[in-house]
């Protein structure tokens, strides 16, 4: 029982990170039907911004996270303006390939500028404490990752449900042309979507830095892919779906490693994904039509 609870804690921390990245995928897809494959690399840039904020400027981890979010929000807007906007009316495959190009650009530009070796997130940035609750080992960084992920998700829900920007995002997602006719600036709304999505990825990047201590220029690839899977699992384009998908993915991986065989972790996780998509091709929260962001 104790082990099961411990595994749940492990799975929720991992899932929170996946969920945060998945949100960016799903928001962008919801609004312009683009799988933004550079998203995982935006997370990587966020991790590096956080790293330099902590090491060079000596800020604490919350400031580092806010700095990373701000820089990456800006980066997301730039990527959209330069790489995706000129292709908005081109075929979807063209945008998709551009996204892969942007992904490589970010990875290898970082390698060029900073070097290929891993960087160690300084231990002083976040003093790890373990709380032993009845034999259960809960670390303050588990709590930090989980709570900040939840806070960010609540803020996101608020923005989308109750602000003008959120309303505009929902409108553009539902019907872009109608939204234009209603006087909504589509360009601005899409920029906002990229900004918010990238900021969430940056937050996830700093969390990965804190949680696993090391960051490197190619760290975005695997979490990016898994978060993409999580977004599809929950129903791509649907925000609560991305959150649930992220947690499901994290828990699934943890349970397979914990109770099955670690050698089959990814195989089983992705097998379940295929199974869910076979039964429900639109994902857990997928509807044939309806509100998408």
């Amino acid at each position, binding site marked *: 029982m104790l082990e099961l609870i411990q*595994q749940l804690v492990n799975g929720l921390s*991992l899932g929170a990170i996946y969920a945060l990245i998945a949100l960016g995928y799903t928001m962008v897809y919801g609004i312009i039907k683009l799988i933004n494959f550079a998203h995982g690399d935006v997370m990587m840039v966020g991790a590096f911004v956080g790293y330099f904020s902590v090491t060079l400027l000596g800020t604490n981890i919350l400031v580092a996270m806010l700095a990373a979010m701000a820089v990456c929000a800006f980066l997301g807007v730039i990527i959209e303006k330069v790489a995706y906007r000129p292709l908005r009316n081109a075929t979807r495959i063209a945008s998709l390939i551009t996204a892969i190009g942007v992904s490589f650009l970010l990875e290898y530009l970082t390698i060029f500028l900073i070097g290929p070796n891993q960087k160690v997130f300084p231990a002083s940035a976040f003093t790890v404490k*373990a709380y032993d609750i009845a034999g259960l080992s809960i670390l303050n960084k588990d709590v930090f990752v989980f709570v900040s992920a939840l806070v960010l998700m609540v803020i996101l829900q608020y923005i989308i449900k109750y602000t003008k920007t959120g309303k505009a995002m929902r409108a553009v997602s539902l019907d872009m042309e109608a939204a234009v006719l209603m006087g909504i600036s589509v360009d601005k709304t899409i920029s906002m979507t990229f900004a918010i999505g990238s900021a969430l990825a940056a937050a996830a990047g700093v969390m990965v830095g804190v949680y696993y*201590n*090391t960051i490197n220029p190619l*760290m975005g690839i695997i979490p990016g892919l898994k978060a993409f899977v999580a977004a599809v699992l929950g129903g791509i384009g649907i925000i609560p779906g991305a959150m649930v998908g992220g947690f499901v993915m994290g828990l699934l991986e943890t349970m397979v*490693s*914990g109770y099955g065989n*670690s050698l089959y972790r990814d195989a089983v996780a992705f097998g379940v994904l295929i199974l869910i998509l076979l039964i429900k091709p639109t994902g857990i929260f997928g509807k044939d039509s309806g509100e998408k962001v």
Partner: protein
Amino acid sequence: MSSKNNRKMAILIIMMFMFSIVAGCGQKAPTSEQPAPAAAAINVGINAELSGGVASYGTNAKDGALLAIEQINAAGGVLGKQLNPIVRDCKSLADEAMSVSAALAGDKIVAQIGPLTSGNVAGSTPVMTENKIPLIAPAATAANVTVDEKTGLTRDYIFRVCFIDPFQGTLMAQFAADNLKVKNAVIYGDTSSDYGKGLAEYFKKTFTEKGGTILATEGFVKNDRDFRATLTKIKGLNPEFIYVPGYYEEVAPLIKQARELGITAAIGGPDGWDSPDMVAVAGASALNKTYFTNHYSSQDTDPKVVAFVQAFKAKYNKEPDAFAALGYDSVQIMVQGIKDAQAADPVKLAGALSKIKNFEGITGKMSIDASHNPVKAGVIIEFKDGKQVMNSRIQP
């Protein structure tokens, strides 16, 4: 249309192939920059990576080898003759290693020391075999260096003085069972590399032979950063020892997470752990009670090692690493072979080298086995409060 294209393609490929042969012929090995050897001297070729990606390996091994040659010459040489080193740079490239070997063969060497990496040795192997000159690899650890994988036959002229990678699994199992006296262990290794898989296999074999129990075998893959789920499971098994064959990028966060979860068992691994990043990532306290195997330690208190370290420091003003020690041993084992053969003849030397038993090197006592791999000792390095400290020497 496709058949026509295929034919064109084939012609093109043949032409390119022929051109490359012609170009290869034109690309004669670089002319010797060494002074003409004295008539009575024994020429020893050193084919090492002095520039390029792994220049530090080659440079250190060359320094070790030259120190050995200097000492031997000072003591009167071999069979009354002086050794004459001919040093050439293979630029960390396999094809360059090949042309360097061709040039060295033209210099009438008795044996070639180097290159350092398994890939570069493979590049040099055909030339050495063709010219029937022994190649002594200081640090090529891949299994197929001395054995042809296709035929399973040992390569007659290829030798090495380092143990092959998976052998470290045997050493660690011995250390765990005999020195740490643990009865059970869990293997949690890198399953995405031959390195990790081979080590796990050898560890399991030796550990069970010594009466130990393997409670579970788990795996991770390169670039994994989250090990908590599997570690939680391992904690439930409560093993006395965890063997983690892998590289430091994954192992350092793994050990950190293991200690965070409250796993206090001793943890062991191979030389892939040897990096300053281990302490930076995992932290000094998490690394207490962790051990890894390596070829050599400059902290060894064995008088032979102490003398070697002193002589090396005096000559080069730097600490000798494992490559320097292995380069030194390569020359020494060659000299032993020449003495055994009673002739500075490459073919006779190869025969003598394959029969060497209980040769005392800096990196341990070694005997060359049927696959031309040395059966030899390794050292156990322990992390103590963030410092690498030599724990013991393990003789198989």
